[in-house]
């Protein structure tokens, strides 16, 4: 991908960028927002912003990290909105979690709704920052350096948020397992 071409406003090159990045970006955003509609909106807004700010992209910088940073910031803003606090139907999730715990099938794969509900439930007690760090480190399996580059948080901050997130999620799991 040629950054100079994108910076110069080449549509074809930008189309290639969208083609290459859209799937991974959608997956990342979906895992953070747990909502398909919001994920689509954030992906669209992110690419629009990349296009608008294309002239400020620095040479040698990672375009993928740049795009992710914009997307993660948009997700963070979304998570911070009070009305975005999602509450799910605990009974349904309880049944689902029990089924998952009892079903000892290692190759079991979740369907879309199950995965989103499970993620939503696990992250229900997390602050927006903790949720971001948890998703990026635990689900996306990014290194602390990468997370730091994307979120702008220090490594210590990332570790602290991750530790708190794990503790809270373990608390939720303990509630259901017991």
């Amino acid at each position, binding site marked *: 991908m040629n950054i100079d071409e994108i910076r110069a406003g080449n549509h074809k090159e930008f*189309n290639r960028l969208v083609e290459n990045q859209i*799937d991974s970006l959608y997956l990342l955003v979906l895992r953070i927002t747990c909502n398909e509609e919001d994920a689509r909106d954030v992906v669209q807004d992110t*690419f629009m912003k990349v296009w608008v700010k294309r002239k400020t992209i620095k040479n040698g910088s990672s375009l993928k990290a740049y795009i992710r940073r914009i997307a993660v910031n948009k997700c963070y803003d979304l998570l911070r909105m009070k009305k975005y606090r999602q509450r799910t139907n605990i009974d349904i999730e309880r049944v689902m979690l029990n089924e998952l715990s009892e079903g000892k099938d290692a190759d079991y794969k979740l369907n879309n709704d199950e995965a989103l509900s499970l993620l939503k439930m696990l992250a229900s007690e997390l602050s927006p920052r903790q949720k971001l760090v948890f998703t990026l480190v635990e689900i996306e399996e990014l290194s602390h350096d990468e997370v730091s580059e994307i979120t702008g948080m220090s490594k210590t901050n990332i570790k602290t948020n991750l530790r708190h997130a794990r503790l809270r999620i373990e608390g939720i799991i303990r509630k259901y397992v017991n």
Partner: protein
Amino acid sequence: MRIMKEYNRLIKLIRLHKPEIENRESLKDSIMSGIKSDQARPDYLFWWTEIRWLRRSLAVAASVIIGIFIVQQMLISNRIDRLEDRMISINTEGILEMQRENVLINSVVLESPEASRFTDSILVSTDDLLSLIREYRKLQEKYDELVVSDLSNKQNSVKEKL
């Protein structure tokens, strides 16, 4: 241990789940059409934000204006503080003076045994009373001075005799 195992299992399940975008092409098309329409629409209002030197100089000007504003506010509050001090001292002096005079009126005129008989029918104006009090105070001061000088004269004469 069991919790950790369950935690790892759930995380693994979520990791394995990689949904595809529904209507991927429509999302892509909407992005690309958004970009084209954005480019087609010239920005008449904020076109100047693209000029770096203009942006920077405006930022510098804004910082300078904010700095001047802060200094000005500090100066004003400083002056108000000083003014407040002055006002307090003037007022306090005035109030004290008035109180002193009132006390004197009460003690000298109204509370004297002769005046108490006419308390309900005094026809002297306040100004007259005040001037009377002031004269009385001057006399009092002179008397005090005389007493003091008399005392010192006596002390001197005693010293001389000794």
